[in-house]
């Protein structure tokens, strides 16, 4: 359960330090770096020749930088997966051999060319949804007997909605909703909303993760699903695949800044880095340990979540995209995100859960204070200082004047 945790603690006592910190954050995280983002569905597919099966779609987002390109591929063939490929060329392409891609043995049917330009590649797969009856209200599925678990929902067996209808090419978002044939999903669905970004910003709705030009986001929500017990809680299984460096280690950082995600003072980062903890981060999945129990949440609808330690997985991830791109030479790791903590309401109180993860390249973005906070503190601390200055001047002037008055009568 205990992941390797690294705590960074920020203290900012004086206003001076505030400004230093902000100006440095501008440089470090490339606030001004922009990418040209474009989105296409099923690249290279001539649907008259090879109509894809219902509910299968491949979204390709090309994020063009000054001298590199980021390719995001989001696919609903098998379990939903997001593939991130970074190339050092501005002309790299995604090539899909569609008949093979849709066949049972799809290995090698998707390539990013020229292959020599590929710098880094990583995939995140949403594989399973666990449901368990939390009889003792501990929200610790690791401690529960196996009998408390219901048959998990395998996301590869889900029927997904048509991506074509849920695509927004200008906002670079795609919505994928689906469910299995069981009664639980008769009125509900599991949805994944994928967004790609070309510049720094935040989404409006909580957790309002800070994103930049090197990141994309997946919001997962579970809406209206009939739980199989009155005390049901859920866990989501995630897998990461890389040819050499999948996401291995989860860092939990403390952050004093909860302005954008009220009451959440931590951020978890599942990172891929070649060596020990000091080596640079190649890519990451970042989330705040919070889920929301309503679609438009208020403060009280937040429910904390926690993650298990990542472990290596031998089996092939159940994703067509991963098979098609990585073939057999790959490494896989996985972890579970468990929603809610002991004492929090069970799923059936709102029948809703949403959780957001940011997937991107390089170092994860770091929150910094908003201009409003800085302005308030500057004015609040600056004004007394100013008054002290003015006061001292007044007192000095007055002293001089009285001294003059004292000497005057001598004449």
């Amino acid at each position, binding site marked *: 359960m205990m992941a390797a945790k690294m705590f960074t603690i*920020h*203290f900012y006592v004086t206003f001076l330090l505030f400004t230093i910190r902000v100006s440095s954050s501008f440089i470090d995280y490339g606030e001004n770096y922009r990418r040209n983002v474009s989105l296409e569905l099923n690249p290279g597919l001539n649907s008259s020749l090879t109509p894809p099966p219902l509910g299968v779609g491949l979204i390709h987002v090309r994020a063009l930088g000054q001298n590199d390109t980021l390719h995001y591929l989001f696919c609903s063939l098998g379990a939903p997966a997001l593939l991130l490929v970074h190339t050092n060329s501005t002309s790299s392409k995604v090539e899909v051999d569609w008949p093979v891609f849709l066949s049972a043995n799809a290995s090698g049917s998707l390539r990013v060319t020229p292959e020599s330009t590929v710098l880094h590649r990583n995939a995140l797969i949403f594989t399973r949804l666990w449901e368990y009856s939390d009889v003792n209200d501990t929200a610790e599925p690791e401690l529960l007997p196996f009998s408390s678990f219901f048959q998990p929902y395998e996301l590869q067996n889900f029927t997904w909605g048509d991506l074509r209808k849920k695509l927004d090419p200008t906002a670079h978002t795609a919505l994928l909703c689906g469910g299995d044939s069981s009664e639980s999903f008769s009125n509900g669905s599991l949805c994944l909303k994928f967004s790609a970004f070309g510049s720094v910003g935040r989404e409006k709705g909580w957790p309002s993760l800070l994103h930049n030009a090197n990141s994309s986001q997946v919001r997962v929500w579970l809406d209206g699903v009939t739980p199989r017990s009155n005390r049901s809680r859920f866990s989501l299984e995630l897998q990461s695949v890389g040819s050499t460096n999948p996401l291995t280690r989860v860092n939990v950082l403390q952050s004093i800044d909860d*302005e954008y995600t009220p009451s959440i003072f931590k951020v978890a980062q599942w990172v891929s880095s070649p060596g020990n903890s000091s080596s640079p981060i190649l890519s990451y999945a970042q989330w705040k340990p919070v889920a929301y129990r309503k679609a438009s949440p208020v403060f*009280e609808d937040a429910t904390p979540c926690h993650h298990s330690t990542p472990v290596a997985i031998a089996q092939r991830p159940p994703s067509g995209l991963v098979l098609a791109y990585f073939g057999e030479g790959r490494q896989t790791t996985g972890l579970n995100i468990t929603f809610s903590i002991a004492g929090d309401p069970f799923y059936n109180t709102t029948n809703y859960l949403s959780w957001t993860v940011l997937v991107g390249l390089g170092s994860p973005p770091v929150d910094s204070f908003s201009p409003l906070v800085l302005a*308030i503190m500057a*004015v*609040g*601390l600056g004004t*007394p200082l100013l008054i002290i200055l003015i006061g001292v001047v007044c007192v000095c002037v007055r002293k001089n004047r009285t001294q003059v008055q004292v000497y005057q009568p001598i004449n």
Partner: protein
Amino acid sequence: MADTEERQRLLDEDGDIPSSRPINESGPGRPMSALCDPSRLLHRLVVLAFMCFLGFGSYFCYDNPAALQTQVIQDMNLNTSMFMQLYAWYSWPNVVLCFLGGFLLDRVFGIRLGTIIFALFVCIGQVIFAAGALLDRFWLMEVGRFVFGIGGESLAVAQNTYAVNWFKGKELNLVFGLQLSMARLGSTVNMNIMGWVYNRVAVLVGSVGHTTLGVSLMIAGATCIFSLICALVLGYLDKRAERILHKEHRGTGEVIKLTDVKDFPFPLWLIFIICVGYYVAIFPFIGLGQVFFIEKFNFSPAEARAINSIVYIISAPASPVLGFMVDKIGRNVIWVICAVFATLMAHMMLAFTFWNPWIAMSLLGVSYSLLACALWPMVAFVVPEHQLGTAYGFMQSIQNLGLALIAMAAGSILDQRGYLFLEVFFSACVCIALIAVVMLYFVDYLRGGDLNLSASARAKLHLKNSDSDSHITAIPSCSHWHTEVY
């Protein structure tokens, strides 16, 4: 429940109401035991016990919402700004009642009936509050807090009036000290015990929910019934003493003239700003503190309640010590600057660091006590004594107004923008107090005022002026009682 004690104490120290010596007649010819003889110390101690517990209920129940913050919010399906309405509704009646409380006690009800009526208000308020939870009607809970507010603050005035009646010229300072400690004790016990009560009730009821909350609050209401019984017993004992000793009654000594407000000098307005800016960063913060410590510092609920009550715990022993110090050294403005600055530091520590919050909260507790000792007596330096009642009434009134408004604001800020922003907001409030006190220092300096005199200089001034007008220089200080006691 802000600072009625301080204000009342100051008034009473100066209260220049003619007192008749109690005529010591031990009944018609038959000797009474010391326990029953109102002129003996032992009997007065019995009375003192009832006096102390008179306020216990209202202090205990005032912070019920803070002690059960998560439970109230969860069981009643509230958001934080609705939760903070519970505090706002307590403060609203006191915006007006701070002027009226003393008048009602003196002229309308009399001290005995007045006390019983206010204690009844407290009881009924708490019962309505609990009934609102039982019936799952939040508006009823707000009504309950309103009624509770009508009784609560005025009951503190009544408590002090009783103390003056029984102990003037005797152990008055000790009595005020004990009452203050009792008030803090009530708040502390509440903070630390209500969570446990709730859990036990949850076991009995079988589940958590608004019923559990209602039953817990009803149990808390027992302390109010207890206070009501104290009020009744005190009324009886007071009546009996009056009969036996032919004692005359002193009032609260408050003369409120609202037209005086236009004559208030500029430094007094600065003192008002300090008062509002400072206290709004303390009480609403404590109201919201519990969940803050759980969320940001990963405290268990019990730990969070304990740290949230540390301000009250510290203020019980620190007030007399700091009061003694301020009294001996003088220089009130400097002390206020220190207190406000320390509070600002404490809030900034809570906002911008993960340092152990016990440091910040202890600092907050000490500075809160220091401010109370240095700020409230300053009012008496800047207004003539005949306006003192109006000045204190006004100060408390706008303090309550500030508390009501800021409680609401704090709730919605937390809902929208989280704890960092809330702490920055509280820091900004303290900054306003800091601006005002720095201005006060210079204004006083340039005007040659005596706010910041050392104690010895003040004593000289007192000697010089004592022939002409003893009233104006009869300088009250919150620590007069401490110097004798501790």
